[in-house]
């Protein structure tokens, strides 16, 4: 078993994963956990689905960070706004209001050109981290709700992709420090969120090898989310099996009423679900040599800040805090 990684000691944490595994919840929980340990945190939502706002129960996010929880600031990525900011900072091109037709043209080029859109995203993120490292911005930690497994490699690989295609110019010259920042394991960690189900596990395994082949970005941990509780030990399970037998059921029926059958059936469902997932988890553990953090399935009434807090607690425990 690998030791719990010192994720809170880094400055930039990415969370990716297959859709539906709870990537945004884990991202929000990590931010909350860090803030409670005295850090000033910036959360960046890359895919504008307002999931982060839901996790903190706040209004929709914009490109300008807003405080969503004490010491947690959150922003939604917007490539046009990022470009505007970039132009203002780097080229001193005066841009008043919207970029207008220029934006449309740039958007068009950005779509066609490898990595331009991605560099505007990753560039803004790296820039915030670098400004903080050099004392011009006050983020102790930047946490990113990154793109899903399918897109994250091209996103993080954007600085390299740009270097391949753009021969000269300021964009090219700025990719070097970004690449260095992403590759530094004392600063950056790419974490993968998964559930113990077939496709999320397969995508995690696939992503780990693609990251190692194609990127120079340090991997952090695999967060296994929604782990169902183990109901029984092996000897307990023997008792459970016998409870389902006719004679035992009769006793249970007398004691608990006629519907004891469905209670046993529900327990059986819980056991089978856990067993099915255990095989996927086994495969994940055998294949991926990264530290794993396990978060329990929450039998909660709703999703929101309360759930985020519960996940943050579980995450803290897994990180040995």
């Amino acid at each position, binding site marked *: 078993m690998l030791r719990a990684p010192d994720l809170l000691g880094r400055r930039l944490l990415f969370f990716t994963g297959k*859709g*539906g*595994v709870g990537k945004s919840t884990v991202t929000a929980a990590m931010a909350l956990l860090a803030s409670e340990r005295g850090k000033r945190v910036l959360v960046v939502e890359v*895919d504008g689905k307002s*999931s982060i706002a839901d996790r903190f129960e706040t209004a929709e996010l914009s490109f300008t960070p807003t405080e969503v929880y004490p010491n947690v600031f959150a922003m939604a990525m917007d490539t046009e706004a990022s470009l505007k900011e970039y*132009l203002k900072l780097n*080229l001193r*091109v005066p841009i008043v209001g919207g970029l207008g*037709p*220029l934006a449309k*043209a*740039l958007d*068009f*080029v950005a*779509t*066609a*050109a490898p990595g331009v859109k991605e560099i505007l995203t990753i560039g803004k993120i790296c820039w915030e981290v670098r400004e903080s490292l050099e004392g011009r911005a006050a983020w102790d930690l930047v946490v990113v709700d990154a793109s*899903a497994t399918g897109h994250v490699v091209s996103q993080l690989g954007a600085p390299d992709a740009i270097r391949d*295609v753009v*021969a*000269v*110019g*300021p*964009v*090219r010259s700025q990719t070097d420090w970004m690449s260095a920042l992403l590759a530094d394991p004392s600063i950056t960690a790419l974490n993968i969120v998964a559930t113990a189900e*077939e*496709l*999320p596990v*397969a995508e995690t395994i696939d992503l780990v090898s693609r990251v190692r082949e194609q990127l120079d970005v340090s991997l952090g941990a695999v967060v296994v989310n929604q782990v169902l*509780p183990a*109901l*029984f030990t092996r000897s*307990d399970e*023997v*008792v459970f099996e*016998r*409870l389902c037998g006719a*004679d*035992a059921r009769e*006793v249970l029926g*007398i*004691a*608990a*009423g*006629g*519907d*004891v*059958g*469905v*209670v*046993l*059936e*529900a*327990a059986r*469902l*819980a056991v089978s679900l856990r067993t*099915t997932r255990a095989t996927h988890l086994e495969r994940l553990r055998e294949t991926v040599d990264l530290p794993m953090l396990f978060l329990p399935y929450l039998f*909660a*009434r709703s*999703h929101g800040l309360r759930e985020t807090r519960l996940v943050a607690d579980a995450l803290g425990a897994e990180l040995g805090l």
Partner: protein
Amino acid sequence: MTAADEDSIEGSQARSGAESLHKSLEPLLASKEMVVFCGSGGVGKTSIAAASALAAAATMPGKVLVLTIDPAKRLADSLGLQEIGNIETRVPQTAFTAAGLEPRGELWAAMLDTKQSWDALILRHASGPEAASRILENRLYHNVTARFAQSHDYIAMERLFEIHESGRYDLIVIDTPPTRNALDFLDAPARMAEFFGGRLLRWLTLPYRVGGKRGARWLNYASKPFYQVADRLLGNQFLEDIAEFFLSFQEMYEAFVTRARAVERLLHDKRTTFAVVTTLEDGPLHEAELFCAELEKRNLHLGCLVINKVLPSYLLSHSGVQAADKLSVNAESVAERLAATCGSPFDDTARTVRVLTTIGESFRNFTVVARRESELRSHLGRHGEVLIEVPAFEVDIADIDGLARLAEFLLPIERTV
């Protein structure tokens, strides 16, 4: 089926559902030629689409194709889909027999290979082999097709069109790509047309068309600031590469737009229907509702809503909750009675108490989730004519047998096992 299931209203509906028109996919699968399954990632779209195709082949004569995007490996294997790209493969009769089915039709399956499909499209539309290879070898080409947000969506719709046009199948069931937004593919044909041929492209490539590749640029008033900024940011070599790429694409513009319009017409055709898949979770449900509303707005046919991975309704039965509580509260006396009546392995009453308490607690835990789901379910707005619920399966759907089990919830099927 348990006692509780029978006395709960939800349960009895789910069971009789198979016979009722509004709880079955049968009318859709029997009358439409294309069924497009959509929904957000992780809801089980691929399995539902494959099970629908299987159900159609099992119960109706004719040829059915399931065009799938990114199936789990074991499912792909069970459908006979190796890494063979766009090739359509027939699912062998023996696979049906093993799952206790006697199919009346044929089931075919294919996976969507985006790159291969794009290449085929270029070869078809280009003016000649030379023009085609100029595009296929352009270093931006792969990038554009692989990264353009609507590229996967478009090519899926394009393949649907092509296969439908070939007339090889009576019914085509298609799974949509996992996009950031389930609505994206509805706009894909229109955006594709805009992307490859719009005014913007002409404007952007203007200096290169007028001045020649390395010649003096003639810049109009509007495009000047763009080139100034772009040049400074990216260097002009890069801009030239882009312009060259789009110039070669431009000769295909007419063909491309005509085709994109045809694809769009197909989505609106009355032979096409959409099936929205969701689970009872906030995110997917929200997306499903958005999608249903959007279909209506665009005058597209919403065939049905499939709610997948629904927890058993007995978790909501009052008598079940009561029984679970009694098991926990009276665990000690129950354990003693079990030891007295049944003997081993109940002789260790402490252990029996532990097991009984756990069973009771687990039931309560799952009840919380089932309530949350039913609460969300009750807020569900409009959803077309057909609403189908598919239960949470305790094991993965990884083979024909699993698909057949799932299919039984979609429409009545006769199975011998």
